[in-house]
């Protein structure tokens, strides 16, 4: 068995009385891309939040390991240290991770200072160039509300990559974007994996994106992981009736 | 979360019970009053509280307890009436402004701005002064600024829902503006504006009592807390009870209604 970067073992999590994530187990090896697919209410976003360590969320059972460290039992403060430097997060709404009315350069400076790094505009510029933003330095002088959603999402990716995390968590990272922009963001994520070997855990409702990106796919329904396997197997020989239905209902171009 | 809501709910119930008691007392004050509040008696001037005269008597030998009870009716009834009328005018004006917009909206809202430019009490004193004394004058004086807060609130809530799909859907069903306002907008903005009305009750009481205290509201001999305090303060060192009891009644009532308004508002905000 290969060495897991992230290992989720029989995880259950809840906001209040009922578990939203129920008894989920899966793992990601370094450089692997795993997509968790599900519809609304399936618990897929909660799974990401459990890994990321949201304070309102209670882990009611099981554990999460990052490398050899059990992170599910860390305090919120200890977890914060790990986030950013080792695990990066790209949220669904890029606006939510930035202050809309502060200059991006100031926000980058603050984030880097928080991780004990000196502000290095050339490095950010280089990162932005890599993900297709040529005017990186000019962009940094803007405030997030002045930029489009696609632009902000790319900057969020750059911000996540700044600390060279070994794992990127993406929560519906493309669903708020236009189709053409979404395609570009998917390509950029694939490039990041190619060039740096970053492992990616992506949660989405979009089976098409999962097929394009994932090495392994998990299907979630009502909090449970009902099917897990490599991408070809999921699409060629799905075992679960619900998986078959999901695949069947994806709109396809009619030639 | 649920615990917090249950706690807030309890607060609302307590506040409602107290407010209801006050309203009941005011309503049945005629029956509850042990003595004629207007009967003067030259032999019983400035008597200290006793079994027959619970709160003592005033300068004219009138029963302070009975006058406080009857005064409750004056204060609470006029407050409710004033808030209700301002509420109605405000919600109608606000809804019309928000729904139709345009020049009428501009004019009415500038008038409202003008009203808000001065402290409410200053406007009220000026207007009540011009209108002369009397409860009616005091109410007009307070109402002239009060409707604006309801109108603003109703307008902003109307603006926020008038572009909801269900309003467009109703228009596509052939409904006129008036029908839409009555069936869709009014019921959906009623709650926040009603809660605002609740929170205004305390302030309005202070306003009415304050104007009466200044001699711009209720005229003698009608019993009203503000005018009672004003009358009795001349001999406060001889008969402090004649000031103390109407003042206590005023404070208690205002605290109860402010508490009610706050409790309901917090309960709603918690949702």
């Amino acid at each position, binding site marked *: 068995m290969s060495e897991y970067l992230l290992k989720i073992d029989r995880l259950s999590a809840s906001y209040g009385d009922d578990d939203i994530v129920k008894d989920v187990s899966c793992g990601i090896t370094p450089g692997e891309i795993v997509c968790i697919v599900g519809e609304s209410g399936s618990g897929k976003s909660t799974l990401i939040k459990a890994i990321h360590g949201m304070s309102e969320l209670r882990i009611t059972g099981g554990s999460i390991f990052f490398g050899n460290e059990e992170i599910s039992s860390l305090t919120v403060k200890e977890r914060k240290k790990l986030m950013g430097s080792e695990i990066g997060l790209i949220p669904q709404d890029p606006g939510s991770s930035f202050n809309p009315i502060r200059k991006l350069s100031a926000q980058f400076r603050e984030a880097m200072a928080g991780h004990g790094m000196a502000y290095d505009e050339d490095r950010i510029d280089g990162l932005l160039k890599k993900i297709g933003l040529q005017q990186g330095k000019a962009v940094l002088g803007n405030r997030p509300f002045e930029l489009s959603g696609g632009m902000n999402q790319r900057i969020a990716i750059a911000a996540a990559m700044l600390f060279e995390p070994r794992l990127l968590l993406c929560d519906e990272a493309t669903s708020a974007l236009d189709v053409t922009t979404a395609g570009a963001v998917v390509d950029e994520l694939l490039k990041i994996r190619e060039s740096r070997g970053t492992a990616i855990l992506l949660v989405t409702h979009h089976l098409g994106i999962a097929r394009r990106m994932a090495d392994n796919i998990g299907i979630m329904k009502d909090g449970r992981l009902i099917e897990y396997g490599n991408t070809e197997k999921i699409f060629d020989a799905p075992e679960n009736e619900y998986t078959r239905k999901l695949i069947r209902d994806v709109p396809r171009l009619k030639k | 979360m649920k615990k917090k809501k249950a706690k807030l709910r309890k607060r609302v119930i307590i506040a409602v019970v107290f407010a209801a008691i006050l309203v009941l007392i005011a309503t049945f004050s005629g029956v509850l009053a042990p003595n004629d509040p207007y009967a003067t008696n030259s032999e019983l001037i400035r008597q200290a509280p006793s079994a027959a005269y619970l709160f003592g008597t005033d300068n004219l030998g009138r029963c302070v307890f009975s006058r406080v009870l009857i005064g409750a009716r004056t204060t609470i009834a006029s407050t409710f009436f004033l808030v209700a009328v301002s509420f109605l005018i405000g919600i109608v004006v606000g809804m019309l402004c928000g729904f139709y917009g345009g020049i009428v909206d501009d004019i009415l809202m500038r008038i409202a701005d003008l009203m808000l430019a001065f402290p409410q009490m200053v406007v009220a004193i000026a207007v009540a002064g011009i209108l002369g004394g009397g409860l009616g004058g005091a109410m007009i004086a307070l109402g002239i600024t009060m409707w604006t807060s309801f109108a603003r609130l109703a307008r902003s809530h109307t603006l926020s829902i008038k572009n909801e799909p*269900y309003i467009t859907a109703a228009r596509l069903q052939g409904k006129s503006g008036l029908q839409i306002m009555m069936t869709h907008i009014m019921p959906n903005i009623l709650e926040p504006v009603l809660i605002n009305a609740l929170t205004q009750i305390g302030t309005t009481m202070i306003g009415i009592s304050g104007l009466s205290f200044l001699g711009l509201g209720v005229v003698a001999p009608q019993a009203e807390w503000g005018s009672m305090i004003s009358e009795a303060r001349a001999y406060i060192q001889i008969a402090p009870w004649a000031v103390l009891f109407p003042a206590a009644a005023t404070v208690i009532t205002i605290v109860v209604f402010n508490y009610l308004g706050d409790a309901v508002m917090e309960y709603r905000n918690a949702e």
Partner: protein
Amino acid sequence: MTILSGKDLNKEYVNRDRSVRPLQHVDFELNQGEILGIVGESGSGKSTLLKVISGIEKPDSGKLYHMGKEYTGQGPEKTGKFLQMIFQDAYGSFDPRMSMERSLKEGSDESREEILRVIGEVGLTEGLLGRRPRHLSGGQCQRMSIARALLSHAGVLLCDEITSALDVTTQAQVIKLLMEIRDKERISIVLVSHDLALVSMICDRIMVMKDGIVVDNGETAKVISEPSSDYTRKLLESVITV
């Protein structure tokens, strides 16, 4: 037969020094019993076009016709007789304080039997009529708004991103329903969406819009297989499907 058409529609919004032109010389035609797809990304003007067609907004210039008769400038109170809209926000299309039954009865004087028939046709049951919107699922709510549109006997349904807030499986059901009622009730449908794959599955014709201009227009098969504009090609390339 052409049931709805527009000629040279223009719309401009001026906001201080910036101006946006979501409609520039747009023509369209909707034939009886047809499903017309309008595809574009955000800011393409597709939603503005739908608002202009429905009369919710007036075009700056250009003309609109229903069965050959001009209706330019008529508000939704009048256009509602021959067209109805289904919105992206299914929950928001119903008054949160009203039961479904009251909402459905609002614009039509149909008997209860007829209401029940239509409810059945959109795949819902009588028991849901007493509920308020928040006690329905997104899919049920969207079916209800289709039922409401059917009850008003309008010949045209304007659908604005009606499935983009729904789950994939629910989306498939609602789209199937649209096709069924088109066949059964002989209505014509305009379907606005950002999802080219979805539109290609059910539309007879497709219009592609970008920055307020119609860049491609034709039979679905033709637009998909031999797009006439670069933008359509780019959209086709961006379709991520399974």
